[in-house]
């Protein structure tokens, strides 16, 4: 990981490098298991199809985990996530490319808010605002 940004080194509007994540059944199921979320629609395609969806879909914790590492990979090892607010949109399923984009939307003394959007072919999957505490 790179060195951690200081809040003073960042400007509102600054963008994070984009990250396109290929979603696989393994990622969806693996993320669900890692978060101990055994709700069938997150690992069992048949269960999701029975609910009218084309395939099993990613659980919220996995989405948040992916967004979180996207933000902290950029911010650096000494960044601390203190808050995440997410607005949930459409599903993310095997075969989808989840396009993560981020930008700095607010800055204070030692903290910044980074807004991450995750879009796929269905539209917006998630918009998450991370509040980070950064080194002085």
């Amino acid at each position, binding site marked *: 990981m790179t060195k951690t940004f200081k809040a003073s080194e960042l400007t509102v509007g600054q963008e994070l490098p984009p990250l396109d994540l290929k979603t696989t059944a393994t990622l969806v199921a*693996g*993320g669900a298991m890692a978060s101990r979320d055994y709700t069938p629609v997150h690992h069992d395609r048949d269960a999701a199809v029975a609910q009218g969806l*084309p395939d099993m879909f990613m659980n919220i914790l996995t989405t948040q985990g992916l967004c979180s590492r996207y933000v902290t990979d950029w911010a650096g090892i*000494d960044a601390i996530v203190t808050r995440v607010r997410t607005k*949930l949109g459409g599903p993310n399923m095997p075969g989808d490319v989840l396009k993560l984009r981020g930008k700095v939307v607010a800055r204070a003394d030692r903290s910044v808010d980074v807004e991450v959007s995750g879009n796929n072919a269905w539209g917006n999957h998630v918009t998450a605002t991370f509040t980070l505490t950064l080194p002085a």
Partner: protein
Amino acid sequence: MNENEKKAFEAQLKSFIGRPIGPAMTGRDPVNEPMIRQWCDAMGETNPAHLDAAKAKGTVHGEIKAPPTMLQAWVMEGWAMHEGYDEPKNEQHRLHKFLADHGYTGVLGTNTEENYTRYLRLGEKVTAETVIAEISDEKATGRGIGYFITTRTKFWNEQGEELGSMSFRVLRYKPPAEAAAAAGGSQGKDAKGAAVAAKPTRIKPPMGQDNGWWWEKVAKENVLPIQRCADCGKLRHPPRPMCDACGSQKFDSIAASGRGKVHTFTVIHYPQFPGYDYPIVSIIVDLEEGERMASTLVECKPEAVQIGMPVELLIHQDEDGFKIPFFRPAKRG
């Protein structure tokens, strides 16, 4: 429901506000490295703060800490969740069943907010208690009429020290077909066996007698066709039935060189339709041949677009195979 029934229903509904969904729940395992590593594998997380004690030591974290967004994972029920439930097991289930029994069968997570007081240390035991915090008045939403339910969860460790909090909002709604059935309509049963949703794609242009040939040529020949009057030779775009110079309805076409310049542009951020990548740089191109056309500029940041900039053609293909002429900044030299 008549007015009195509705009042009774809403009174019973709102009586859930403030109830804990059940007893506080303690995670089966304390915060531990194997579960952290499994999480990091799945998330592609390589941050040494979560994985490497030696490296974590020299950082603000000081030791291995759990990834912040794992907070809820420490108290998740795990395996038992796959069995679902026929009989409600807690107040949250009872609330959802109560609404489902009254026709609010749809459920959709809409928002979350998590606050992390600090990152969790190895060995900590996490306990959580969830309360039904808010139930909205009945709202009309894009999904149908329904109620927003907000639950709030507090997390603490075995010393009673606060670790964080979470709020989670779901919409419980009446799918429109069922709403119609409840109101005496006939299509209610159609909601059963709902068709599998299709992945949205680009909205296709209308292709009629006057312009269908143009799209076919794009798809089959990978060219940008420009319509040409077969009598006087004048070019015209977009395709239309009659030459505005000589009135002839005979035409053929040429393949454009693909070179042009941006005449003007606009950047579309909103509204965002599924099936498109945003922001879209929408351009009017002056083609080398003299015609002007609307297209999309790709491989170019919105802030880099300039009027007059040279662009070149590419035939873009969507995932569903649909082809459309786009432009990108011309390569120099």
